[in-house]
């Protein structure tokens, strides 16, 4: 049984990495990876919201939508719920952990519109996970996102000092780097399932 849960985490972190394999949540991946410091905060916030979001969406799905035969409302209700959860976390954090809140700055509300955050609960619902499975799936996705984002931010910080040919400067070279990283992550395929 433990093996099963362990596999869920390994699979979400490496094999089915949301960013590089599922190609979800690309906007924060490109947008918040300019500095290592902010990318660490962003990944922590995303991992947190993903875990909590998966759990609440599981509850909505399990207790509200499925009994009432309203599965087609999933996308809509998940967006609403996740937005609410993010808002709530933001307020909670601002009050209780002002330092962390300052560090995350505008990234917290940005997470609301992150497709990875919506994608994971939807995938959860599709594969009819249990509560624990959903939580682990969300958490693993968050860790996968963090690993990739932090790696990528460190690379980009280095690129800042590199002599890049003019037309490649900025986003272009970042996209090239991302695609090479994506290729590298494809190597994990076959580890599981």
């Amino acid at each position: 049984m433990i093996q099963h849960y362990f596999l869920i985490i390994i699979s979400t972190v490496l094999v089915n990495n949301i960013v590089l394999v599922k190609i979800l949540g690309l906007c924060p991946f490109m947008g918040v990876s300019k500095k290592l410091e902010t990318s660490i905060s962003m990944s922590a916030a995303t991992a947190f919201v993903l875990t909590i979001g998966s759990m609440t969406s599981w509850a909505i799905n399990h207790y509200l939508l499925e009994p009432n035969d309203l599965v087609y409302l999933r996308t809509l209700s998940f967006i609403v719920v996740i937005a609410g959860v993010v808002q709530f976390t933001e307020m909670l954090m601002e009050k209780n952990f002002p330092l962390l809140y300052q560090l995350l700055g505008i990234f917290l509300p940005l997470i609301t519109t992150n497709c990875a955050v919506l994608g994971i609960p939807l995938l959860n619902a599709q594969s009819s996970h249990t509560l624990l499975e959903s939580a682990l799936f969300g958490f693993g996705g968050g860790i996968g996102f963090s690993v990739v984002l932090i790696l990528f931010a460190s690379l980009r910080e280095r690129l800042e000092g590199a002599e890049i040919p003019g037309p490649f400067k900025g986003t272009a070279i970042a996209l090239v780097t991302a695609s090479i990283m994506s290729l590298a992550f494809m190597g994990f395929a076959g580890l599981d399932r």
Partner: protein
Amino acid sequence: MQLKNIFKFNGGVHPDENKIASTRLPIAKLAIPKKLVLPLRQHVGHVAKVKVKPGDQVFKGQIIAEADGNISAAIHAPTSGRILKISEEILPHPSGLPDFCITLEADFKDTWIEKKPIPWKKIEKTQLIETLSQSGIVGLGGAVFPTHMKLKTNQKQTIHTLVINAAECEPFITCDDMLMRERADEIIRGSLIAQTILGAEKCVIGIEDNKIEAYEALKKAAQKTTVEITVVPTLYPSGDAKRLIYLLMGIEVPKEKRSVDLGIQVFNVATVAAIYRYLEFGEPSISRIVTITGAVKTPQNYEVLFGTPLSELIKAAGGSSNKQKKFIMGGPMMGFDLPSIDVPVTKAMNCVIESSPELFPTPKPVMPCIRCARCADACPVNLQPQELYWFSKSSQLEKAREYNLFDCIECGCCTYVCPSNIPLVQFYRYAKSEIIAQDKSKEAANTARERNEFRLARLEREKKERAERHAQKALGAQDKQAEDDKKSTIAAAMERVKQNQQENIKN
């Protein structure tokens, strides 16, 4: 000459020494020049305060500019004569920018002001340091830090070891070598004085093993004293104070700490000799030994009065032999190109090298960094020069600071070994001065913010006070009105009473 237990530091390089040429002849005294130009900024710290005015007659050894505050040093007239002017002149500084100097016209009589030897054994330490701050002595190894500050120790810092730096590791420079050969006695006595003032238990002289004659002379002079002489292998930069401490004692001075915090003080040989001359004979710091070498006809060491134009020294050394006329101040590793030869000799000038295409060929073309990390192997302070280069080159200054840019001693070992011929140290110097400038402007912005906030608060307060005053005035006016009303009613009542009384009387 045996090598004792020494602790080898990482890295370091061994460039061609080129020291023999300038040690063939003994130290000569350079004639007094017609005019001497004495910069007010010859030391680290505050600029000296001028004590003379144009037209004044001064004697040799008279203070012409006084130390301003603690971290500062006095400047003395190197010979007798008349003050010509106080003006901006070009200094021997990489910037080539002018700064304030006192120009002295020599009268060639060379009359000393009354010399006052100091009975240093008898007077109290604080007083002794006070006197030393009048001596104008600064670190003659090149750092030019006021010496009296280094002799001052507080209760928290007790010095257990005094290290005398005789390593002189840079190629070409031989001024300390020659001084040791000819005036070993002064050095040993000066060391003992410094040891006594500091209250140090031990005094160790660290000397590189390429200076055999100097070693023998020192050994002879130190025979019946407690001064230890330790020979260290010839390896650049063993003359860096912190490297020398490591070599001799195996103690690494941690980041952001000074050797004094660990109970170790370091002096250059020339500095202790100057201390000896000041205390024993009352002669302040007015001259130093300068090596003139390189492409000049007769490389030699000269005892030169401060303020002597460099061109005089070059003439004495047989003049320059090639057309280019490029001169380097300091050694080839850490020195810089002099902006002109019309600069004065200062307290920091230990060596002048005439550059020539044979000695210093034009640098090979710069190639990209291939991250071979040879520089990291050569770095004596265990930094990662390739990373520092990466960040300095792209002006990622905060990153460079994170990678301990400010621990770099700019020794040039990385540049020396770089197979791509990248002028690494130039990048570090750029990054350092840029960071310092940024910090300064940040500080200025902070004071401006404070001053603005204070002003706004003051305006607010004044407004409130004015409003209060107005209110009070208005209140006062009302009171007066009320009083008038009262008075008139009283008067009216009195009137009525009077009328009544009169009517009563009438009735």
